[in-house]
């Protein structure tokens, strides 16, 4: 078994601010993902990484940066927060870059004032 932790749980930012979200997993999984979930909508892929120091853009990468510093951690940066933005950012991981089960973290809830 393993666990994915995301910090912070809640994030309140100001318009134009640069905000960083962190994700850690102890599954020893190779691939990690960042998704955005808006209320009443599905999950949209922002970035993913198949190994340490690898980065791949998802469909929603504009406005975000990511960093895979080591195998167990994957960070996401909102480069310029948009006013009234409200969403949940979910981190996930899989054993490899194949069609394996994705395990999700508890999420970071973002609110931009």
């Amino acid at each position, binding site marked *: 078994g393993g666990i994915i932790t995301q910090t912070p749980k809640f994030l309140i930012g100001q318009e134009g601010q640069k905000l960083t979200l962190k994700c850690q997993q102890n599954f020893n999984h190779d691939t990690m993902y960042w998704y955005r979930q808006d209320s009443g*909508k599905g999950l949209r*892929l922002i970035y993913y990484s198949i190994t340490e120091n690898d980065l*791949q853009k998802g469909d929603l990468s504009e406005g975000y940066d990511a960093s895979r510093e080591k195998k167990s951690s994957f960070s996401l940066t909102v480069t310029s927060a948009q006013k009234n933005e409200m969403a949940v950012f979910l981190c996930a991981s*899989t054993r490899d870059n*194949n069609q394996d089960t994705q395990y*999700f973290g508890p999420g970071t809830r973002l609110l931009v004032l």
Partner: protein
Amino acid sequence: QQQVRQSPQSLTVWEGETAILNCSYEDSTFDYFPWYWQFPRESPALLIAIRPVSNKKEDGRFTIFFNKREKKLSLHITDSQPGDSATYFCAASEDYNQGKLIFGQGTKLSIKP
């Protein structure tokens, strides 16, 4: 362009009835279709998945029916229980695409006791 579509957006059935959730997709190269469920204030988790080599996958009260020709699949939940109340996401991926999942917008299922 929405590559994976789900209907209905929300569904209410009585306890004990069969709930049917629908999903369709655009890309004929998709070859893996997982369903994730998400309970309120929790993260998504894998429920059941199917590959096109089969047209049916069963796991207890949950069954996926798959129609490759029409690019449609459905999730049937028999003997629905109040504890099945959740949002259900259909997703799809291609074998060569590094595990990238395309999620539908979800169906919010409510089971009335």
